[in-house]
């Protein structure tokens, strides 16, 4: 549908996200205050913090999903590979192909498994059936779902278990071959075994992608991420390598949160 615009050569590996004094407003209410945060390519960044701290708002700022809500605005810049995501010439449809997203509550379409995964490539103009078959298979393999569904691709996706549907949503995002994968509390409605599968998957996927995950589960953040950012009341309190963050946080509020004294 859209031909990829040649991107300017950038000094950073593809998939690097950088926020510079990024603020976000819902109408009059300011939700994010001057955030500076760099999310390196081929690594997992986890956002933690109590409910309403702005971590989901920030995550949704990366693929501009917040723009769906009327009356929102931002200031500052958000860069993907050095390009301003909010620039006038940035095509938001194309941006969302480069930045995939998985939501808290799995949201498979009421279509077949195949059609779910093929949706992105189809609307973005993937033509031939054989090509589509390959894309679907490869996306399902990358999401570690292929062996479970290869014999029932034409059946409804809604017949899958919650964990399988969530991995299907990951496969659906991967079918667009994105540089970045955003996950908004992907495991909060899943049982521990399904959660473990998703975490293993993220570990595999970070070899190829930038992964940003919002989680309420601190153990999960500690297990899957390389870098952790702690949000509080719309501000970024602390960001550090995950190991250091969980063993020797610099800020008192971070320590209080990760030791369970509030939040």
């Amino acid at each position, binding site marked *: 549908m859209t031909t990829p615009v040649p991107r300017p050569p950038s000094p950073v590996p593809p998939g690097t996200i950088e926020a510079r004094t990024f603020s976000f407003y819902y109408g009059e209410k300011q939700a994010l205050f001057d955030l500076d945060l760099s999310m390196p390519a081929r690594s997992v960044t986890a956002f933690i913090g109590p409910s309403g701290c702005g971590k989901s708002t920030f995550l949704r700022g990366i*693929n501009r*999903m917040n723009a*769906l809500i*009327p009356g929102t605005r931002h200031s500052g810049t958000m860069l993907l590979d050095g390009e301003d995501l909010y620039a006038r010439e940035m095509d938001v*449809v*194309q941006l*969302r*192909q480069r930045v*995939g*997203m998985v*939501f808290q*509550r799995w*949201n*498979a*379409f*009421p*279509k077949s498994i195949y059609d779910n995964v093929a*949706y*992105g490539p189809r*609307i*973005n103009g993937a033509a031939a059936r054989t090509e589509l078959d390959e894309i679907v298979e490869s996306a399902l393999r990358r999401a570690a779902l292929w062996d479970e569904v290869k014999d029932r691709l034409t059946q*409804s996706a*809604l017949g899958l278990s919650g964990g399988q549907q969530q991995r299907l*949503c990951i496969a*659906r*995002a991967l079918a*667009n071959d994105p540089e970045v994968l955003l996950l908004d509390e992907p495991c909060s409605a899943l049982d521990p075994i399904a959660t473990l599968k998703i975490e293993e998957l993220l570990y595999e996927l970070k070899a190829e992608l930038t992964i940003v995950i919002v989680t309420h589960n601190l153990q999960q953040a500690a297990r899957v991420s390389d870098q952790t950012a702690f949000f509080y009341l719309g501000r970024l309190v602390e960001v550090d390598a995950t190991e250091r963050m969980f063993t020797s946080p610099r800020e008192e509020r971070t320590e209080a949160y990760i030791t369970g004294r509030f939040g």
Partner: protein
Amino acid sequence: MSQPTHGAVVEPAAPGGRSTTAQADDAIAGSSRGDGVYRFLTTAAAWAIPLLLGLITLEVVLAAWPAFETFGLSFLTSSEWDEVRGVFGAAPMIYGTVVSSVLALVLATPLALGVAIFLSEFAPSWLRTPVAFLVDLLAAIPSVVYGLWGIFVLLPFLRETVMPFLAGTLGLGNTPFFSGPAYGPSMLAAAVILAIMILPYISAVSREVLMAVPRSQREAAMALGATKWEMIRDAVIPYARSGIVGGIILGLGRALGETMAVTMLIGNRHEISSSLFAPGYTLASVIANEFAEATGALHTSALMACGAVLLGVTLLVNAIARWLVWQVAREGR
């Protein structure tokens, strides 16, 4: 009336065969006497409706029986309706009822869906409520007012502008559907007025189901790089599909039974014509027109038979439509 009904439904559920949830409910609710009264009232109300429908059907069929007995199947297939000779065939009315309603659906559905999609997806919120209110207001206008408006505004407009345009400018006058003189009162006029009358029903139901599509479905499509139109086409409408079909059925039900406005505009002629410019008749119209002046028992019975057929057509159409909704819903899930 409700006493045996009550026993038949409640008793099997009361001793022994109760589910654990029912027992748990009782444990929470405490007072079982209040529950018993409540259950009795709701069960009685639920059974009253099929009972009423059954009684009405029985009464109509009994009254229609002489006509069915006299004419047999030819009541459904014959076009002859002669009070003097006492010969009655309802084929033109059956044809007129079905054709005018289906044509009304064809005209109203795209428009109603357009309104619903605009209101649920595109309209700014300050515009949404007033426009939705105005569309809903269409349903509040009395049928006879539609009829009057039809006679004084719609018929001249159809006769002088639309019919010459269809027959002449578009050159459709040679096809059997748009041939013949343009009087005004016609199947087309009835279908147009019906379309306007059922539009609010289809539109209101569609709007509700479109707005009820979960945000997660919209976000799923948007996050994969769908444009707004692709999101509506691929995520919103399929999710709302069975509800939209339900709204269309509701509209069809209204169109089949509508009497006053159609009687004033359809021309009331006992004849089947392929041309939409020609006058026609509907089952509801013939009853309204002739019942007060029915001559003789057979004539009255024939009109009751028209009522029975209308009931049958309505039930049949609704059954088909239900089945369609079920198919659509199953296909999607």
